[in-house]
C-alpha cells in the first residue's frame, strides 16, 4: 500500500490525513534505529526501549519535520538524543550505588525475543548474507572482525597479537564494517 512511497511522502501523508502511514516508517527503520541504540547503549533491552521512545518522540513531532534533512537522518538524531537521555538517566541511577566516572559500562548482550515467522525468515536470510559478506572480506580485515566479534578481544589485544599499531586496528575494523555495509546494501533483504 505504502511501499512505493518515499520516506518523506510517508511523513507528509501521516501528518496530513493518515497517521498510520507512520507505521511504514517504523517498519522500514526500526531495525536500523534499534541497531543505532544498541551501538550507543550496549544493552539490548535498553536499546529496545530507547528505539521505542525514539519512534514515539518522532511520531509526536511529525509536524516539526521540515524536510530540510532526510527522514533517516532526522530519525537518527532523535534516536541519538534518546540514547543520550537514557544514558544520563542510567548514570544518575548508578551514582547512588557506584561511581561510573571511568566509563566502564556494562555491555551485556541479551538475546532478543523473536516476534514472528516472517521476522525469523528475514533474520535467517540476513545471517546468510552476513556470512557471505564476512567471508568475502580481505584476510586482514576479516581477521580483526573475527578477533573483535568472535574472540571478544580488545583493540590493544588485537594490536599485540597482530603486531600492528592500535590506530591500524581501529581503521581496519572501520574499513571492514564499511565494506560489509556496502556488500549488505547491495543485496537488500526482502521483507516477507
Amino acid at each position, binding site marked *: 500500500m505504502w511501499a512505493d512511497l518515499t520516506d518523506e511522502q510517508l511523513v507528509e501523508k501521516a501528518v496530513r490525513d493518515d497517521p498510520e502511514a507512520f507505521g511504514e516508517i517504523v517498519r522500514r527503520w526500526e*531495525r*536500523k*534505529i*534499534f*541497531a*543505532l541504540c*544498541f*551501538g*550507543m547503549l*550496549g544493552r539490548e533491552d535498553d536499546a529496545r526501549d530507547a528505539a521505542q521512545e525514539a519512534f514515539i518522540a518522532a511520531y509526536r513531532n511529525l509536524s516539526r519535520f521540515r524536510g530540510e*534533512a532526510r527522514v*533517516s*537522518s532526522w530519525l*537518527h*538524531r532523535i*534516536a*541519538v*538524543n534518546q540514547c*543520550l537521555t537514557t544514558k544520563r538517566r542510567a548514570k544518575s541511577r548508578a551514582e547512588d550505588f557506584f561511581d561510573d*566516572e*571511568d*566509563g566502564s*559500562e556494562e*555491555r551485556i*548482550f541479551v*538475546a532478543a525475543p523473536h516476534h514472528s515467522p516472517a521476522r525469523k525468515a528475514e*533474520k535467517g536470510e*540476513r*545471517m546468510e548474507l*552476513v*556470512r557471505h559478506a*564476512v567471508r568475502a572480506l580481505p584476510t586482514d580485515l576479516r581477521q580483526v*572482525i573475527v578477533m*573483535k*566479534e*568472535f574472540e571478544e578481544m*580488545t*583493540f590493544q589485544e588485537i594490536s599485540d597479537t597482530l603486531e600492528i599499531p592500535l*590506530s591500524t586496528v*581501529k*581503521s581496519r*575494523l*572501520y574499513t571492514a*564494517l*564499511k565494506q*560489509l*555495509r556496502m556488500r*549488505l546494501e547491495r543485496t537488500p533483504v526482502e521483507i516477507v
Partner: protein
Amino acid sequence: MLNNGHKKCEFGEDIVAYLYGEMPAAGRVLFEKHLAMCHTCTDEFAAISDVRFSVFEWQRAEFAKLATPEIVIPYPAKSGVATTGLFDGLRGLLSLTTAVPVIATLLIVLGVGYIFFVRQSEPVPVAVQSPVEKPSVASPQPVAATPEIATVAPPANTKVEKATVKRTPAVPRPFVAKRVAPQVRLGNDVAVSLTPAARKAPVLSGYEDEDDTSLRLSDIFDELGAKRPD
C-alpha cells in the same frame, strides 16, 4: 566523511572505538556532543552500528550456541617404568658394576681393621705380684670357675717372696660369677648370713606381727642367748 557537504569529519576510528566501548570517558563525552549536532556522523554511526549488530547477531546465532568442543590431546600412554634412552641401561649397569667392588673393598678393609683392633686391644698376660695375704678376713667365696692360681704361701714371719701367677692364655680374665651374701661374724665363730631375704624390710601397710617372718635382731640375740642390750 563530509558534514552536510561542507566540513570533513575524521571520526571514523572514534565511531569504532565508541561502538565497541573502548573510548575514554572524556573522548566519549566529546564524541556524543558531536554526534548530537552532526548529521553525517550520526548517519555514519547508525550505518556502522547496523552492520556491527548484524555481525553480532550472526555470531550469536551461529557461533555462540555451539558447544565448545572437548579437546583431547593424544598424549603417549604412561607406563610404570620410566622411559629410558638407548644407553641408559648400559649406564646403569656400569654404575652398578663400579659400586659393588667399592662396597666389597670397604667391607673387607673394615673387617680387617676391626680384627686388627681387637687383637691389639686384647690384654697380654703379665706377671702379677700376689699381695700379702691377710689372714683374718672373710673374703667372698671364690667361684668354682676361677682360674688356677699357683700361690706360694710364704712361711710366717718370713720375707714375702714374689709370687708368680700363671694364666693359661685360653682362660679369660677372672671374674666373680656369683655374689655371695656377706656374713656377719657375731662372735663365737658364728656367722650370720645376711641374705637379701633376711634383709627384707617388713611391709608397713597391713602389718601383722604374726605374719612377720623376717629376721630380727632380737631373735638372733635370743638364739644366741645373749643379753639383749637395753
